[in-house]
C-alpha cells in the first residue's frame, strides 16, 4: 500500500514536471522528450552506481543538498522577479513564454529528469539497492520512461492561455520535486527547515533581549512571558518554516500582481483601452495559475512531511531504579526483553520529582550504546527507531544508528556505561546529572526546553 502511494506521488510529480517542460518549451517538444528520457535514464543509472559506492545516508544527504540548492535558487529567482524594473510588462505573446532554444530545452529537461529519477529512486526505497529493492527500482524506471510520452499528448489539451515563464517552470519543477521528496524521511526538507527556523527565532529573540537590554524572565508578568514563550514553541518553528517554504511562489505571485498595468493613456477610444487592459488582466490571471499551484504543491509537501507514513519503533520506557551502590543494572535478557535485538529499549529512572529517560541499543557493529532519550538541542520529545536510523521526534532529524552513542548535534546525549555478557550497568548520578544539565538546564532561558 505504502509503495503504491509513493508510486502514485512519483507519477503525479514526474507527470507534472513533464507537462510543465513541454508547455514551457512549446516549440521544441522532440528535444524536450529526448532530454527528459535521457535525463531520467541517466539519473537512474547514476543513483544505482552511487548507491553501490556510498552509504545510503550520504547519498540521501547529497540529494537533499541538491533539493535545497534548487529551493534556494527558486528563492533567488523569485526575489529577482519581484525587484525587476517596474517598466517590464507581462509577455502575452504566445503559448511558449520561455524563449525557444535547443540547448536550454535539452539542459533543463535533462536536469529535471536526472533529479527526478534520483529523488524518485530515493522515495521508492531504491537507494540502498539490493535484490529486495529491484521492484521499486523497476517501477521508478518504468514510470520515468513512460510518462514523458503521455505528457506530450496531455500538454496539447492544456488551455492555450496557460503560459509558463522561466520562473514559473522553475517553481513548478522545484515544488513537485519537494513534494516527491517529502514522501521519504531521508529526503524531506521541510522538517529540518522548520527546525532551523525555530532555532533562528530562538537565537534571534535571545540576542534581541540581550541587545535591547530587556530584563530576564523572572521580572516579567506570567501571562506576558507565556506569550513570549510561544515564540519558542514547536508551532512557531512550523509556521515560520511554512512561511519560508511558501515564500518563493508567493513572491512570484506578488511580483506578477505588482507589475504595472500597461500604459493605455495614448489610446483615445475608451472601449479599446478597456479591452487592452482586460486582455492584460486575463493574461495575468493565467500566469498566476502556476505560482498558486506551486503553493498548493508545497503545502502538500508540508502535509506529507508532518504526516509521515513511516511507523516508528517506540517502546514505552520501563521504570528502573538504582541499587544501594547507586548503579542501575539492566539485564541483557529479561523475560521478553532482549537488549541484543538491535532495537532501541527505553527506560525511565525516577529521582525525586525528576524522571530521566534513557535508551539502550545494540548497534549494527555489535556494540551497545546507552544515551538519554533526548538531545542537547531540542525539547525532550524522545526518539523513535526506523530502519537503520533513529529519529528525533522534535526536529525530525534522522540519526544513523551507527552514530548513536556519539555526542553532538541532535544525537541522543551519550551516557557512560559498562557492559558484560549478562548486564549493562549505568551510574545513577551520571544519568541524573546528564539529564539535569543537558535537558533541563535550558528550562529557564528563553527558548529553553520545557
Amino acid at each position: 500500500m505504502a509503495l503504491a502511494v509513493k508510486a502514485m506521488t512519483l507519477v503525479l510529480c514526474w507527470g507534472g514536471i513533464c507537462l510543465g517542460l513541454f508547455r514551457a518549451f512549446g516549440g521544441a517538444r522532440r528535444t524536450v522528450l529526448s532530454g527528459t528520457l535521457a535525463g531520467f535514464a541517466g539519473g537512474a543509472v547514476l543513483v544505482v552506481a552511487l548507491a553501490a559506492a556510498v552509504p545510503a545516508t550520504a547519498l540521501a544527504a547529497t540529494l537533499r543538498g541538491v533539493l535545497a540548492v534548487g529551493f534556494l535558487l527558486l528563492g533567488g529567482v523569485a526575489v529577482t522577479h519581484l525587484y525587476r524594473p517596474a517598466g517590464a510588462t507581462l509577455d502575452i505573446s504566445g503559448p511558449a513564454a520561455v524563449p525557444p532554444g535547443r540547448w536550454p530545452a535539452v539542459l533543463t529537461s535533462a536536469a529535471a529528469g536526472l533529479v527526478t529519477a534520483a529523488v524518485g529512486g530515493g522515495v521508492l526505497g531504491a537507494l540502498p539497492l539490493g535484490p529486495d529493492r529491484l521492484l521499486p527500482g523497476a517501477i521508478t524506471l518504468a514510470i520515468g520512461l513512460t510518462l514523458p510520452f503521455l505528457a506530450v499528448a496531455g500538454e496539447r489539451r492544456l488551455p492555450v492561455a496557460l503560459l509558463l515563464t522561466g520562473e514559473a517552470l522553475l517553481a513548478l519543477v522545484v515544488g513537485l520535486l519537494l513534494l516527491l521528496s517529502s514522501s521519504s524521511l531521508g529526503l524531506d526538507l521541510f522538517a529540518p527547515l522548520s527546525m532551523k527556523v525555530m532555532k533562528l527565532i530562538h537565537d534571534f529573540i535571545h540576542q534581541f533581549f540581550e541587545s535591547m537590554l530587556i530584563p530576564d524572565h523572572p521580572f516579567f508578568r506570567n501571562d506576558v512571558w507565556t506569550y513570549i514563550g510561544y515564540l519558542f514553541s514547536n508551532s512557531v518553528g512550523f509556521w515560520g518554516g511554512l512561511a519560508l517554504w511558501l515564500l518563493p511562489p508567493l513572491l512570484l505571485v506578488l511580483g506578477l500582481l505588482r507589475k504595472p498595468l500597461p500604459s493605455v493613456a495614448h489610446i483615445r477610444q475608451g472601449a479599446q483601452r478597456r479591452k487592452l487592459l482586460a486582455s492584460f488582466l486575463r493574461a495575468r490571471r493565467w500566469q498566476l495559475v502556476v505560482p498558486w499551484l506551486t503553493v498548493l504543491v508545497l503545502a502538500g509537501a508540508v502535509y506529507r512531511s508532518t504526516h509521515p507514513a513511516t511507523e516508528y519503533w517506540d517502546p514505552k520506557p520501563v521504570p528502573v531504579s538504582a541499587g544501594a551502590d547507586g548503579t542501575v543494572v539492566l539485564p541483557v535478557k529479561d523475560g521478553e526483553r532482549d537488549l541484543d535485538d538491535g532495537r532501541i529499549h527505553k527506560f525511565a529512572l525516577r529521582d525525586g520529582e525528576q524522571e530521566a529517560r534513557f535508551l539502550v541499543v545494540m548497534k549494527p557493529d555489535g556494540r551497545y550504546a546507552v544515551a538519554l532519550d533526548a538531545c542537547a538541542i531540542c525539547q525532550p520529545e524522545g526518539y523513535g527507531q526506523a530502519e537503520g536510523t533513529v529519529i528525533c521526534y522534535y526536529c525530525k532529524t534522522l540519526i544513523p544508528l551507527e552514530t548513536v552513542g556519539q555526542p553532538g548535534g541532535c544525537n541522543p546525549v551519550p551516557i557512560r556505561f559498562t557492559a558484560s555478557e549478562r548486564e549493562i550497568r549505568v551510574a545513577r548520578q551520571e544519568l541524573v546529572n546528564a539529564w539535569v544539565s543537558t535537558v533541563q538546564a535550558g528550562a529557564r532561558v528563553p527558548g529553553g526546553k520545557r
Partner: protein
Amino acid sequence: MKRLLVVLSRVVTGRRTTPVILGLFLLVYIGVAFFTEEALVTLMMLTRRVPLLLALLAMIPLNLAARLVGDLRLELRRGRALAGHPSGPLDGLFDEEVRLAGEGRLAELEAWLAGAGYRVKRGEERIAAVRGISAAPWRLLFRFGQFCLFLGILLSLTTRAVVREAVIEGEPLPAVAGAGQVQGIRLAAEPGGLILNKSLTVTVAVPSAGGGRLRSFGLYPPGLLNGAFFYPRYLGLAPLVQFHAPDLAGEAGSYYLLMLYPPGREDSATIPGTPYRIVFSLATSPGDEDPFLSGKYVLNAKLFRGEEPVAEGRLPVGGALERNGFRVAVPEVRQLVQTDFIRDSGVLLIWLAAALFAAAVPLALLILLLAPRREMLFRASGQEVIGYSRAEGRVRRHNGVFHEALDLSAPH
C-alpha cells in the same frame, strides 16, 4: 575610474542593494548553520571579524541614507511641480507621462476634475489635481527608521563592550561603573505592571560637584552610569558563610556571591583550601512570598566533600546547620544584583528605529487604505498637452479619471 565611480554610485543608491546584501547574509547564515548549532552567534562573530562582511553590513545604512536623500529630493521636486513652481524635467516623478496633440481646454478640465473630487490648482498653462493624503512623510520616517536600525546594528556589533560585575548592598560600585557606593537594593511587586510584575530599585550614592547625590537604577529602560548602561541580569545573595568540619582546624568564614534567584535555583560555594563545597538554594513553600520581596531568607544547604554528600538541611539567615560534626552558619546576607555594564552606541539608534516604525507603519497603512494620494498634472504647450499621473492607491479608478481627463483635454 569614472566608470567605477558611476557603478559605485549606482550600488550605493540602488533599491536592490539592501535586499541583495540581506540575501547574502542569509546565504552565509545557511552555510554556517551546516557546521554549527549556534549559527546566529557565529554569524555575528564572523561579521565582526571579517572585513568584507563588515563592509557589506556598512553598505546597508549607506544605501538607506542615499535612498532617503533621493526620496526626499523626489518628493520636494514633485511637490514643486504640482504647486506650479518652475522646475526642471519631470522625469521619474510620476508613474505615467502622456503627450497628446490638442489645445488643452484647461477651463473645462478644471471643472471636470473638481467634480471628480480632486483639489484643483490652475495656472496659466497648467492644471494640477490632487486627491487624498500623501503617505510620503511617513514613508520617509519609515526609511529613516530603517537607516537607524541598520546603523544601530552595525554600531552595536562593532562597539559593544560588556563587563559583568556584582553590585552589592553597602559596597562600593565596581570599578567599571566609576566611583560610588551602593546604598540599597529593593525588589518590589508591581501587580499593575503592563509587562513587568516586579520593580527593582538600585540606589547608588555617586560623587558630584555638590558633594554627592543619590541615583536610582531600575529594570527598564536601563540607566546610564559612567557612560555604560546599567543592565541588571540576575538577583543574588552575598551570605557570610562560616564553616567548620571535623577534619579542619578552626572555622573558615567568608562572603560568597551566589546567584539564587528565582527561588529553587542552585549555586555553590567552594570552601577554599578544602575539599568541601556547599550547594545553596532559597527554600520556599507553596504560598510563600518571594524571599526577595519579603527580605526573609531561608537557605537550603547541601554540603559535599568532593562528590560525596555529607550533610543537608535548612539554614535560616542568622542561624546555623549542624550535622555529623559539620557546622555551617550564615550570620548575615546582603542582596546583590549581577549587572552587565554595557557600552554600546547602537542601542539608542535601535530604540529610535523601533519608535519610528511604531509611528510610521500604522499611519502610512491607514492613509494608504483610507485616502491614498492621487495626483495629476496637465501642461498645455501650443498644440500639445502633456499629462502626468501618479497614485499611491486605488490606481485603477484614478487611471480611469486620468484617461477621461486626457480625452477631455485632447479630444479625438
